[in-house]
């Protein structure tokens, strides 16, 4: 189901023309209204009117989380405070939060984008939306709320927590759509099992899950346990909140980025160079319609890749692959960028299961050495040496093919890889540089 047929299925050519017009307006606007951007743009030699094609985007300066911290709280606002109608903030990992503002029109845009997201999951005005995202400074709660209201669905602003009450509401109010984090959805399934509630007696049909990274395996688990379709949605406060991109029910394969509002790029996080479609790298967004808090080339530190392959749902907007990791985890080995998620994908492909693994990087005679330790579980264990050695060689070959980096695979006993709070530490970098 498509909320805004006209814009979501715009032919690429028309879409790009619209993007160019909006990009030019945005850059010239922040050049005059935000001293921070003006200074950065001038350092790059930018003069108003310099944007002539979408390719010119790659010549603009990046904006980083550090920039947001340095301009705390309102330094990047592009409108006077009397035009701001809402302020949200996300928890900062170091001290001060990141603060974002919205004009009345921004709030409308956001509601439109969340209406599109909810429609991706089949939501209509006859649905009952249980919104278990937190309400407050966090953008999840109010973002979902306004989107559901815009569609005309009945929204239950229950916020997060209190699982037993959530389940009671599902039963009594007949909730059909669930908004929450994927881990909370699994928690609800567990509580249902404990309480003896059969999910097939509920009216729930679809869940839109975001705000944290998750996996295909987790999707299958949620779908099986709650008997619903589970879609991945993506957003971040710095860009707008939820409503940046969403999977569709038709393919459940990659999240459509609402490109008439956000221009996505994938860059090499080490060099900042823009990468072509299909290559994995850091996701970067430019918001072309936001008034109060526009960002130019905001570096998300999330790892993804983009695809313009046509989609069964009819949307023409580019799709981003499910977030596979953070640039913070990136390793540079002999000059090659390596993401743990890429190694993981090789292991899953070779073994057919999600293994526990760890990457150990050392330096021997000024050369980086990558060792991939893989725990031997029953599904990959064979009684013969040649079977296990064959497996190691195969993984080494596949990693070399994919990344162009040689590594050594070392098979280790189960539970030898350290886990913190159930999650394995993926990288140990022992290089002394």
């Amino acid at each position, binding site marked *: 189901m498509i909320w805004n047929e006209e814009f979501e299925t715009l032919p690429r050519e028309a879409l790009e023309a619209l993007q160019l017009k909006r990009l030019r307006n945005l850059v010239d606007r922040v050049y005059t209204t935000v001293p921070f951007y003006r200074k950065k743009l001038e350092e790059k030699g930018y003069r108003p009117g310099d944007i002539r094609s979408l390719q010119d985007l790659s010549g603009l300066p990046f904006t980083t989380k550090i920039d947001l911290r340095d301009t705390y709280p309102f330094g990047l606002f592009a409108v006077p405070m009397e035009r701001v109608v809402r302020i949200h903030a996300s928890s900062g990992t170091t001290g001060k939060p990141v603060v974002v503002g919205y004009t009345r029109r921004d709030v409308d845009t956001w509601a439109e984008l969340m209406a599109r997201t909810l429609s991706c999951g089949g939501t209509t005005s006859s649905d009952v939306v249980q919104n278990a995202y937190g309400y407050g400074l966090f953008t999840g709660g109010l973002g979902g709320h306004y989107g559901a209201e815009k569609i005309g669905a009945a929204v239950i602003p229950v916020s997060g927590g209190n699982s037993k009450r959530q389940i009671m509401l599902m039963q009594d109010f007949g909730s059909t759509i669930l908004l929450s984090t994927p881990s909370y959805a699994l928690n609800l399934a567990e509580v249902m099992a404990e309480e003896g509630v059969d999910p097939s007696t509920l009216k729930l049909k679809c869940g839109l899950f975001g705000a944290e990274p998750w996996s295909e395996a987790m999707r299958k688990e949620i779908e099986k346990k709650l008997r619903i379709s589970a879609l991945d949605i993506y957003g971040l406060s710095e860009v707008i909140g939820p409503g940046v991109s969403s999977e569709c029910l038709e393919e459940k394969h990659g999240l459509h980025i609402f490109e008439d509002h956000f221009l996505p790029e994938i860059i090499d996080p080490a060099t900042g160079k823009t990468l072509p479609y299909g290559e994995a790298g850091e996701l970067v967004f430019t918001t072309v319609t936001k008034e109060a808090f526009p960002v130019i080339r905001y570096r998300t530190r999330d790892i993804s890749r983009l695809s313009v392959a046509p989609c069964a749902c009819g949307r023409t907007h580019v799709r981003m692959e499910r977030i596979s990791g953070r640039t913070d985890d990136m390793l540079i080995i002999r000059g090659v960028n390596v993401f743990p998620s890429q190694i993981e994908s090789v292991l899953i492909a070779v073994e057919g299961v999600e293994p526990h693994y760890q990457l150990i990087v050392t330096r021997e005679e000024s050369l980086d050495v990558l060792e991939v330790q893989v725990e*031997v579980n029953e599904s990959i*264990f*064979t*009684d*013969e040496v040649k079977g*296990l050695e064959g497996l190691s060689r195969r993984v080494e070959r596949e990693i070399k093919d994919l990344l162009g980096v040689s590594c050594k695979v070392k098979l280790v*006993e189960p*539970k030898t890889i350290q886990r913190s709070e159930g999650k394995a530490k993926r990288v140990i970098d022992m290089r002394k540089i």
Partner: protein
Amino acid sequence: MKVEQISIFLENKSGRLAEVTGTLAKAGVNIRALSLADTADFGILRLIVNNTDRAKQVMKDSGFTVAKTEVIALEVPDSPGGLAGILATLDKAGINVEYMYAFVQRSGDNAIIIFRFDELDKATRILLDAGVRVLKAEEVYAL
């Protein structure tokens, strides 16, 4: 005829073998035969014990990766050429020995050797046809 063997994945670290044998001792499992295949990084310990299922369970519970494999036990004349004759028979039939190791116990005047083949059933048939005695599983566990 097939004998159940358990195989345990071991890293090449000191104390691992002691850990395995200690765990089995505590569980009252008696080891009848064993062999250790090793590489630079890891080893595979193969055991014939008096209670395979119990051994497998206690090893799993102790966090080891364990597999059950089928092998056969042959009586080999304890005289020069005893093993050579059996291997020649297998070679003629084109059967590949994955690995083999000897039993500590003897069966009368004969030695006992454990064999793992890629084609276990075919190998068993050919050996029986050649007059080699293949031990029954119960005989092996009770030795």
